[in-house]
């Protein structure tokens, strides 16, 4: 592994060191943060990262916009909760089943949606999330207004809900898996095909890509991740209620990927952290919060369209150049001496 590390360019080394440092900091964090609410808060960021990564597969990779992805969190959440409450299947397995079910729903939605152009697609996704919310509100066995209590997540005999340190590490592991898979996807045939569809669907078709197939696939993958995030959220909070799934909440995930940067692995991570932090910081601003969000989004779109990741990349490139220069300087100095 170390020998492989030496073959990387300085910039790649800088990036990898930064990622490693971030991972280490996050891994040891629960040693210092023992406040249960804080740990819950961080576990929740995991939910957001998974959902935002899912949305990013659709928006960043395949170029289809959705303002209705909260609906997939709803499907994932309710399916998992119903399954675990009524059948006694282990919760973790229920969550996975719910994610697959959500992906199936995503595919059904995607088949007509794949034909729609930008603004019509957005309208269709908004309509879809309104439909979903109304559906939940009208299914009385879901107890939509008062909510349902959910089962605890048990992994190999360990009750994750008993201590938020456990959910913290569970979030960490889930996010790591999602990020690795997403990065692998972007470097594969399917990921390339989605990006080709995004850049130029007409010539993608001419080059042998079944455009419709990959649009539907992107929808399914994003619905899978959002469904899983929804299921995890329901079991993490111990409670599920229809109000968690109103359409405007879809915008939060769009905000996260705009903050972080679309079609990047770490964009949703940075975006989710930023969103949660802003939420906390702006909590006292109340009604002004949405105004501030609007201003921040405009600033991002105008000055940093690639999101924070683009900015960090630029910084990383600068740092790499500085290191290279420094090393070259040292070498010439050494050569001069000898």
């Amino acid at each position, binding site marked *: 592994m170390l020998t492989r590390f030496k073959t990387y360019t300085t910039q790649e080394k800088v990036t990898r060191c930064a990622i490693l440092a971030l991972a280490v900091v996050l891994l040891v964090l629960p040693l210092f943060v023992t406040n249960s609410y804080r740990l819950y808060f961080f576990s929740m960021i995991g939910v957001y990262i998974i959902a935002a990564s899912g949305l990013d597969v659709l928006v960043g990779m395949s170029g289809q916009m959705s303002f209705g992805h909260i609906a997939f969190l709803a499907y994932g959440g309710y399916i998992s909760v119903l399954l675990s409450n009524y059948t006694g299947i282990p919760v973790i397995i229920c969550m996975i089943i719910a994610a697959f079910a959500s992906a199936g729903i995503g595919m059904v939605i995607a088949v007509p949606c794949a034909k729609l152009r930008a603004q019509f697609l957005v309208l269709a996704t908004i309509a879809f999330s309104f439909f979903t919310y109304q559906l939940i509100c009208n299914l009385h066995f879901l107890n939509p207004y008062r909510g349902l209590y959910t089962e605890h997540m048990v992994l190999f005999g360990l009750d994750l809900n008993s201590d938020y340190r456990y959910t913290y590490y569970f979030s960490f592991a889930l996010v790591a898996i999602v990020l690795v898979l997403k990065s692998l996807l972007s470097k*594969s*045939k*399917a*990921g*390339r*095909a989605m990006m*080709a569809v995004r850049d130029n669907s007409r*010539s993608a*078709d001419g080059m*042998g890509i079944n455009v419709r197939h990959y649009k539907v696939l992107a929808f399914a993958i994003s619905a899978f991740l959002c469904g899983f995030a929804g299921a995890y959220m329901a079991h993490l909070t111990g409670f599920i209620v229809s109000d968690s799934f109103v359409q405007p909440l879809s915008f939060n995930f769009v905000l996260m990927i705009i903050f972080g940067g679309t079609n990047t692995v770490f964009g949703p991570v940075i975006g989710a952290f930023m969103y949660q932090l802003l939420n906390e910081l702006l909590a006292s601003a109340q009604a002004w919060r949405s105004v501030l969000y609007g201003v921040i989004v405009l600033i991002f779109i105008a000055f940093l369209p690639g999101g924070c990741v683009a900015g960090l990349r630029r910084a990383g490139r600068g740092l790499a150049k500085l290191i290279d220069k420094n090393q070259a300087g040292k070498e010439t100095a050494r050569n001069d001496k000898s």
Partner: protein
Amino acid sequence: MIRAENVTVRFGGVVAVNDVSMHVEKGKVTGLIGPNGAGKTTLFNTINGVQKTPEGHVYFEGKEITNGKGYKLCEAGISRTYQQINLFLSMSVLNNVMIGQHCRIPYGLVGSLFHTPKMRRQEQAAREECIKCLELVGMADKKDLPAGALAYGEQRLIEIARALATKPKVLLLDEPAAGMNATEKLTLNNIIQNITKMGITVLIIEHDMAVIMEISDYVYVMDDGHLIAEGTPVEVQNNPAVIAAYLGGA
């Protein structure tokens, strides 16, 4: 190889292609020339399924492909370049060409997500194939640049490499020399000759008479939607109807 029979394409009241029949012979370079607006690109689009038409038939290797789906025709062995550059501009040059290999790479979603050993092998083979295609057009050293960063003429060459990566039987080139300078045109001639040596049939639309006369074996001439002449380059060059169409005489 490709046979078009009585193809007619209408846009509202305009007849862009009017009852055109042509035949692209296997292993040869067939030229398609004509003034602007003659309907050449529309005919191309009809062949590779971009343009649908209820009138006429197109056959590929004896099978009817009229109004076929673009991606399926590409799989069958028809590839093309575009008059307006149609690259994936945010992707690297190599990834653009890798898109061409898409329909020749067998692994599926599981391979894409988990990078199985089988996937890695196939991906490696595809990458080598793409680099060969880039070498053929002399662009292998630019493989890591974003496609949008290249000059116009270079982008055209990348389009050819991408089309070659689909392993076509027939290659449709839509004005490949447009926007190229004299030296680039010379390289282009060489490239096209090398492509035919690989056994790939070529159908080429071109404005530049020098290019078309030098490389094509057989030429069709269109004007105002009609086919007005066909024959060897020399025959066509001396055809009075062609001269009239090009010089605007009566």
